[in-house]
């Protein structure tokens, strides 16, 4: 219906605006940080009230698996950052390969997490199981937080992986390109956040003595 002479404002919301989309992403990451921030707050309070129990309970975790997962995630943060640079330099193929590597890392992370969790289940360490319900209160609180926080983090790993997969498709369709790489950059930012949160979860649950 609209005729070809339609006046278009210079500051149109339908223009492509890389700055706007980056700003939007940062604001969103901010809300994600606050989401986990609420949990960190709960962690701090319960840890403060149950220091010894938290320490005892943390011995149940496998530091090696946690360390490997940390390395996996850090590496994947590097690959996605390299993917962005590759696309900026016009090498779409390399960008796609590096993005796939990131997704591979995400999958390895989840597999390792799966083994960690299932060994807890085998030891009866989940709410409702006999062994768990016999634990002292503080240790139960530790595991409540452990399952909730690492579970929520794992969900974010999945979301981040799917996000990157979508961007790979768009690079193939040349919707995300050397000139318009915002979406890849945003998926990278999101992935760094996932990484960052793990960087905090790891010492909180595995390392603090």
């Amino acid at each position, binding site marked *: 219906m609209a005729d070809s002479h339609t006046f278009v404002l210079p*500051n149109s*919301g339908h223009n492509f605006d890389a700055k*706007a989309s980056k700003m939007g992403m940062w604001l969103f990451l901010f*809300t994600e940080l*606050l989401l986990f921030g609420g949990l960190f707050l*709960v962690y701090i*309070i319960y840890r403060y009230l149950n220091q010894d129990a938290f320490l005892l309970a943390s011995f149940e975790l496998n530091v090696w698996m946690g360390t490997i997962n940390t390395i996996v995630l850090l590496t994947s943060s590097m690959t996605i950052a390299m993917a962005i640079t590759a696309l900026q330099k016009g090498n779409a193929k390399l960008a796609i390969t590096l993005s796939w590597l990131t997704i591979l890392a995400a999958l390895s992370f989840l597999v390792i997490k799966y083994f960690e969790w299932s060994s807890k289940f085998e030891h009866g360490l989940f709410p409702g199981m006999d062994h768990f319900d016999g634990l002292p209160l503080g240790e139960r609180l530790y595991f409540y937080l452990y399952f909730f926080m690492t579970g929520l983090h794992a969900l974010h790993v999945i979301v981040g992986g799917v996000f990157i997969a979508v961007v790979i498709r768009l690079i193939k369709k040349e919707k995300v390109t050397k000139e318009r790489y915002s979406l890849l950059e945003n998926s990278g930012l999101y992935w760094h956040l996932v990484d960052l949160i793990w960087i905090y979860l790891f010492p909180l649950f595995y390392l603090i003595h």
Partner: protein
Amino acid sequence: MSETVVQQPSFFQVKKGLFSWIFTLDHKRIGILYLYSIGFFFLVAAGLGILMRLELLNPGRDFIEAQTYNQVFTLHGVIMIFLFIIPSVPAVFGNFFLPIMLGTDDVAFPRLNLFSWWLYILGALFALSTLVFGDGPADTGWTFYAPYSVKTGTNVTTSVLAAFILGFSSILTGLNFIVTIHRLRTPGMGFNQMPLFAWALYATSWIQLLATPVIGITLLMIVAERVFGIGLFDPSIGGDPILYQHLFWIYSHPAVYIMALPAMGIVSEIIPTFAQRTIFGYKAIAYSSMAIAFVGYFVWGHHMFTSGMSGPAAIVFSIMTFFVAIPTAVKVFNWVATLYKGSIDIQVPLLFALAFIFNFLIGGLTGLVLGALAADVHVHDTYFVVGHFHYVMFGGAGFAFFGALHYWFPKMWGRMYNKKVANTAFALLFIGFNTTYFPMLILGLKGMPRRYYDYLPEFHDLNMLSTFGSWILVTGIIVMVINLFAGGIKGKKASANPWNGITLEWQTASPPPLHNFDKMPELPAGGPYNYPNAKNASH
């Protein structure tokens, strides 16, 4: 149609059919989608409110069982808070008018905007599904306090998930507005040339962004506790219920400003237009919004004076609560000063704005009573609280919403409602509102507790008065709604600028064309409210 030579089709005419609406990317259509959805839920929850008042007409059980009553006030509260008042002004009028007032053609992320609306609908479906599935709607009150919310057999999980999804929708709207304000203002419009409504939305959006995630995670913890036994709040399996209250109010107090600030933004638009006079203290109003948003973060403890809190903490929370009153009062003084020596034209929108000031004043001052430590112990969880928050949310924010509807109606539909009927509806609403809720304040002072379907015989008279009031109130709502529908269908055609407003939305046609402007909008010289022919114009 005849006055202008080439008339662009309005955004209503561009495309037709259901799909052109529910998949639209046009911010104006999305605003209208929100209006109909939000309006619908307001009417549903108002119906529940009327039912409760009917039950409370006489002491003893009239027609609602105790358990049903608990579910009714919970559903009423959940719908009114999460489906009506929190999204109301930003989602409807923010969506429709923010881009136009900034002189642009859409929000920064049109697709995300549509997605927010779909999330809203999904959340609404979750909330309503509790009526049909499982063991009925939650009976916890809209606050979902643990440990009861973890133990009750009613459908808390679904209600809580509804609130979570709606929170997400609200975050995305806020994010969209912040980026829009930063990136899409018309050339030449600095932050300090923005209309005050835009400022109010800006402050609100930050609160939506900074506070909502906290309740999001808290509600997820409730779900995890119910579904997997992750006992973070139930003391019998490990947790601390007071911690739940803290987390809940860290969001829910700032949420009060998500409701109040946009309402104040509307009043700041209406008053200069109907006084035909520059707003008094533009910067004071703009920055006090930010100040309220900031201080509002540090007062949540005033909801918990009686739940167990150390003396010093209580004193700090109480003092901070008193501080919030200062920027709020600054605004009221500025509005009154704007009216002083203005050429006041008393039209329906102005009446609603004045009613906002009146009701909000009562709501705010009773809030100070509740924020004072000794007084709160006496009136905590009584009808004084019920009266107080209805004055703030309904008499304040709700009336501002109605005011905005009457103010921008001609712009949105290009037609004018019947002003005489609108005046009558306003009078019914104002009288009905005060007759319903003022008695509640007195009942509370006398000690009548909230959240019961029954009361002692000595409270009978005032309860009857309150219920009569609710009948006047509901008549007002019905008259207003019918009048607006009639006006939208067959009202007189409205001109582009029926109120002689000066902000940018009045420069374009009514209703606006798809891209909002046919030519570059012109900023008024000397600030957004500098009326050229007013006595105080600065040139």
